[in-house]
């Protein structure tokens, strides 16, 4: 079944000086999927991407693309294409020339070049801007030009290095939708590097969560979010709600840390009944953050630890007179919504 995977990384290691930026990682990416390398800065995700692109030589391990080991191939012969964080558009060329650069290098006749560049610009909704200079475009437009330029050579893998990092929030959300649509349209494998867990969850088919040069978990977005494999993943993806062994024991009876997502918790009046398949903990509201669509409570538990609760504001929150800072509450959630973390049992 090896051939099902488009890109395989085997024991990849890259050291800068004494420190390993990427430390013995292995994973496979299925053909045509949208894979995200997620992690904080300095976790090795960009280094991994650059090794795939051919800008860094791995110290150890293999990069296998479509069944072929490409470690020794120079960047210009790998058939991958990269969208750079700073877009790297050539300032001395027009937008059209930038997009057609890959075709020019491949000695495609001028007329065909222009036609295909225009096609690509249409696809990224920049039709008619081919004659401009990159400096005359907005950040979002430059980002699209970079995308069009990378896609024109019909690469089998598109590598994206935090391409939305420089855009503002609204534009970023819009581009997330468009990127996903373009990926579906061209049907090639996307490998996307980001430190933004929201981006990773919304676009990916698979997420590899990086930390300190290693992979903590590789899974689908739902899996990563609902069943974080490690404490790091639980904290990095989504709002951290981790109870340590002692605090967990008071609730579950087992001294093993667990995580629970804040929106899974229901906040009820103290002394309310608890269903058989549910767990409960009593505590006091420590802080209340009204966020518009939801309200975020921080509850200090009576038997140690604290939990964040995110409650959708289906009703006007003012109607609930008892949900104030300092008031005692009971937190209830379904037993199977908790995710045990650590070596004792249950870790995925």
């Amino acid at each position, binding site marked *: 079944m090896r051939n099902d995977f488009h890109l395989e990384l085997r024991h990849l290691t890259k050291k800068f000086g004494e420190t390993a930026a990427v430390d013995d990682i292995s994973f496979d990416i299925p053909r045509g999927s949208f894979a995200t390398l997620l992690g904080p800065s300095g976790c090795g995700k960009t280094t991994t991407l650059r090794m795939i692109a051919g800008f860094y030589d791995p110290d150890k391990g293999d990069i296998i693309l479509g069944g072929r080991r490409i470690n020794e191939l*120079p960047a*210009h012969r790998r058939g991958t294409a*990269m969208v750079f964080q*700073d877009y790297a558009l*050539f300032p*001395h060329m027009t937008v059209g020339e930038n997009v057609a650069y890959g075709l020019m290098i491949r000695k495609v006749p001028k007329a065909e070049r222009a036609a295909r560049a225009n096609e690509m610009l249409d696809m990224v909704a920049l039709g008619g801007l081919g004659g401009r200079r990159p400096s005359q475009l907005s950040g979002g437009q430059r980002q699209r030009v970079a995308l069009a*330029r990378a896609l024109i050579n019909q690469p089998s893998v598109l590598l994206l290095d935090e391409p939305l990092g420089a855009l503002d929030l609204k534009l970023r959300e819009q581009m997330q939708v468009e990127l996903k649509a373009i990926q579906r349209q061209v049907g090639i494998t996307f490998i996307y590097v980001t430190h933004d867990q929201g981006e990773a969850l919304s676009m990916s088919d698979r997420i590899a969560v990086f930390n300190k040069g290693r992979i903590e978990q590789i899974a689908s977005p739902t899996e990563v979010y609902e069943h974080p494999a490690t404490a790091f993943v639980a904290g990095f993806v989504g709002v951290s709600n981790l109870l340590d062994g002692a605090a967990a024991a008071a609730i579950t009876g087992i001294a093993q840390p667990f995580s629970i997502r804040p929106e899974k918790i229901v906040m009820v009046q103290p002394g309310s009944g608890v269903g058989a398949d549910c767990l409960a903990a009593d505590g006091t509201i420590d802080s209340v953050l009204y966020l518009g669509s939801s309200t975020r409570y921080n509850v200090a538990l009576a038997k140690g630890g604290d939990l964040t609760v995110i409650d959708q504001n289906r009703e006007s929150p003012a109607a609930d007179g008892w949900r104030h800072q300092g008031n005692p509450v009971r937190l209830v959630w379904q037993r199977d919504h908790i995710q045990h973390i650590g070596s004792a049992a249950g870790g995925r």
Partner: protein
Amino acid sequence: MAAVSADAAPAPGVLGRFSTFLYLRPRVMLLLLLVPPLLWLGVIYLGSLFALLAQSLFHIDDFSGLVVYEPGLQTYAELFTPANIDIITRTVVMAAVVTLICGAIAFPLAYYMARYTSTHSKAIFYIAVMMPLWSNYLVRVYSWKLILAKEGVITWLFNLVGLGGVLDWILELPVIGGPSLSVSYIGTCITFVYIWLPYMVLPVEAALERVPRSFIEASADLGAHPGETFRRVILPLAIPGVAAGSIFTFSLTLGDYIIPQLVGSSRPFIGMAVYQLQGTAGNIPLAAAFTIVPMVVMGIYLTIAKRFGAFDAL
């Protein structure tokens, strides 16, 4: 306003009130700041330039040797006598050759400095490039005179490795040769190149340094092998730096009057002609007209450079 400041702070002094006045009227402040440099630029700098231009419109009375203060173009006509045309051609050709050689030497050096040095070794390169500028110009020119002389270290070196014949052959070349390097155009050119090289290295290095690594990576990523990346991306982006450097080397060579006087065949260059005309000959109008020549040549040079897109990537 007084009431507000009274309880917030002690009453402002004269300077304080002046500061408030300027703060509230930014245009007045701008004017005050700009007047000195504008006076300098407008009156002293441009004024003297126009005085020069005016001088060139007068002419010398051939019999009395006195300046005739009537505007006309006689003096400019004098520029076109064969002897003066020779001076101009000689200077412009020398400036062009010096610029080309400087570019050829500076580009690889600047490229290495910009792309392959660490912070530490880059500092050493910078110092090495600029160190000559810290010593006296005349001393350096005289040093080259000694180095290039018949009894100098270059002749000695050529003879040492048994290439004395090659040097003799070079010196026997028509026009550019001469009795020894120090009294030939070759010697003048070598000295010019040495003296102006830093002015070419620094702007080219700055231009190359401004080319982000990601441009080179993007080009490679799109299928270009290193040679193509150099030709299509790095070189076009370095051209403004080369243009800036060439403006320095070209105009400095056009105007210099020391080097061709000390090292070379003692045939006059524009600078030397100006020096002699305004001094011993007392022909201020022709000296002024000669001074206009480098300006016109630079104007033409910049126009051509712009036409070829040298400043497009600025």
